[in-house]
């Protein structure tokens, strides 16, 4: 297997300083906390997790929009933030969640899609025109929409415009942050089909951020599960869905509502509270919601443990060094 990462976070941390109230000291929010994660050429890396877990912060760091507070990001062997802004913006492009707010309402579709060409100053006028009609056809938009404005288009058509705008530069990596969550199911499936087709055709690498596990399962080749700024489990899609190790991954998979009327509403037994990210619980941040929590979980943060067949899991349940101790055995018997 090719172990060379195309785009990679190494021990990346991003903190934000947030005001906690008028007379209180500002607090530090660790949105992303020492994350190492990479994507290989041609892969589709899915990142899943609840809102506030830091997945969009990772997307913004990888896009070159937000420098990590510490740690590094490498792109094609070079530090991402030592590259020219334009140079990286040409090779890594975003598709955002909301096609209503990510398109400028005062520009025509033609202007929106061809803007990257003008910014990067590539191609003659005729070439630009040719590329523009080519990409419109490729994403399934009729050329008569070129002089239209975004408000004249449906949600699905707008998302096609956003995809066309990302692809006209022939990027190498496309970062999709919830690309279909604002769309109806019948339109969602069209956009997913399109994304899969384009990947095959242009040899693209995707990073797909989504809270919809069914979508991630369908198109990702590898999945990273995020919880409070950490990747708690990461593996190829097939083994993660067949054999989820981390209790949080299991709870997430249990919560997916598939259209199967024989099954009732699942009970993931997570408790209500997603912890306040400003005051993360000590030890393993997941322990207050975990059904397998042991005393050690409140004291010490787990370290990444390799999964069989690649990937890792951060959980004391799989720590060989702890396995011999009585408290671990007691927890094992209980589960």
């Amino acid at each position, binding site marked *: 297997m090719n172990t060379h990462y195309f785009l990679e976070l190494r021990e990346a941390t991003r903190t934000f300083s947030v005001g906690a109230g008028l007379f209180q000291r500002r607090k530090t929010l660790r949105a992303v906390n020492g994350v190492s994660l990479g994507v290989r050429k041609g892969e589709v890396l899915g990142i899943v997790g609840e809102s506030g877990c830091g997945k969009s912060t990772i997307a913004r760091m990888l896009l070159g929009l937000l420098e990590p507070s510490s740690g590094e990001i490498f792109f094609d062997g070079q530090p991402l933030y030592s590259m020219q802004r334009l140079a990286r913006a040409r090779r890594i492009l975003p598709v955002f969640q909301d096609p209503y707010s990510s398109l400028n309402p005062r520009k025509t579709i033609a202007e929106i899609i061809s803007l990257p060409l003008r910014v990067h100053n590539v191609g003659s006028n005729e070439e630009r025109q040719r590329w523009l009609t080519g990409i419109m056809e490729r994403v399934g938009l009729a050329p008569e929409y070129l002089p239209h404005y975004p408000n004249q288009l449906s949600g699905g058509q707008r998302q096609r415009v956003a995809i066309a705008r990302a692809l006209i530069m022939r990027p190498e990596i496309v970062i999709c942050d919830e690309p279909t969550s604002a769309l109806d199911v019948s339109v969602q499936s069209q956009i997913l089909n399109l994304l899969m087709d384009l990947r095959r055709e242009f040899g693209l690498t995707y990073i797909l951020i989504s809270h919809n596990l069914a979508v991630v399962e369908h198109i990702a080749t590898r999945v990273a599960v995020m919880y409070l700024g950490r990747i708690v489990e990461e593996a190829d899609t*097939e083994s993660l869905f067949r054999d989820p190790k981390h209790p949080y991954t299991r709870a*997430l998979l249990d919560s997916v509502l598939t259209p199967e009327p024989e099954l009732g509403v699942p009970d993931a037994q997570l408790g209500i509270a997603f912890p306040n990210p400003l005051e993360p619980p000590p030890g393993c941040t997941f322990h207050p919601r975990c059904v397998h929590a042991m005393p050690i979980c409140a004291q010490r943060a787990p370290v990444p443990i390799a999964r069989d067949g690649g990937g890792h899991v951060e959980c004391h349940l799989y720590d060989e060094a702890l396995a011999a101790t009585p408290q671990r055995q007691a927890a094992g018997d209980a589960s």
Partner: protein
Amino acid sequence: MSALLEVENLTVDIRLAAGVLHAVRGISFSVATGETVCIVGESGCGKSLTSLALMNLLPKRAVRNADRLRLDDTDLSTVSTRQMARIRGNRMAMIFQEPMTSLNPAYTIGNQLEEALLQHRAVPRREARDRAVYLLEKVGISAAASRLGQYPHQLSGGLRQRVMIAMTLMCGPDLIIADEPTTALDVTIQAQILHLLADLQKEFQMGLLLITHDLGIVARVADRVCTMYAGQFVEQGSVKEIFRNPLHPYTRGLLECIPVPGKTPRGSYLGSIPGMVPSLIGNLEGCSFRDRCRFVREGCEQDIALKRVGDAGRTYRCIMTPEESMRADAAGAGA
């Protein structure tokens, strides 16, 4: 089982400059005590207007008409505005999609909860307060008494939706109408809220009308399902029948659009419904789905009468006979 809510031939028309928009076009259904009925459809199909029409909360320009609109022994189509205000929030209550915008940011949780009861019953504030605490505990909020003094912004999205649910229960309603109650929430929280709704419904013996676009939710919570398209119910039946054997091409199309982990082969093409929802302005004739339907044939341009199948209240609106529809399904699955 006698019906708690009975709706016959409900229409909602909206007067626009361009003509009359027929948003809801003659729908009939009923909800029994203890029963969960789901209306499922994509954006713009009229499902939210249906819920507003039942609560008599339609915008001014919208006109409601119905042959029958009955809640228990009250005829909702003839009650005065004042009488309706006494029913709303009291005997039928509504949970809205956005818990952020449907709670008043300027009042405490306790204030808003107590108001619901004080408005409708001559009870001392003390008693309203006790009921608020009791219901907050019921919906799984810890330290309920101390929450009464908090403001909506101090709570997470999941907690706010729990508060909304507690608020609808204050007067012990017979019917709850929930319009996309979990759309703004994370998957794990979504499962919890749906669990909670189902438990409370059983405990308090209420009818539940749930409006959603998510077939996964429908499959897991509904007793009966109404598929809505372009203002009409194109199919209605028990949840098992609808999912096992959809008779309308639109219902079937929706089901084919969603990837199901473990069932849909990973990376395969998802089904899609080409085209767009037709405009509902002016005179409408024939099957409104015909422009998007792959089984369209001669006769579809004429109005299609609602067909009854069996005696369990299964209906659908398509030119194909059930046998033809099933054959078409088998052929579609093979293709």
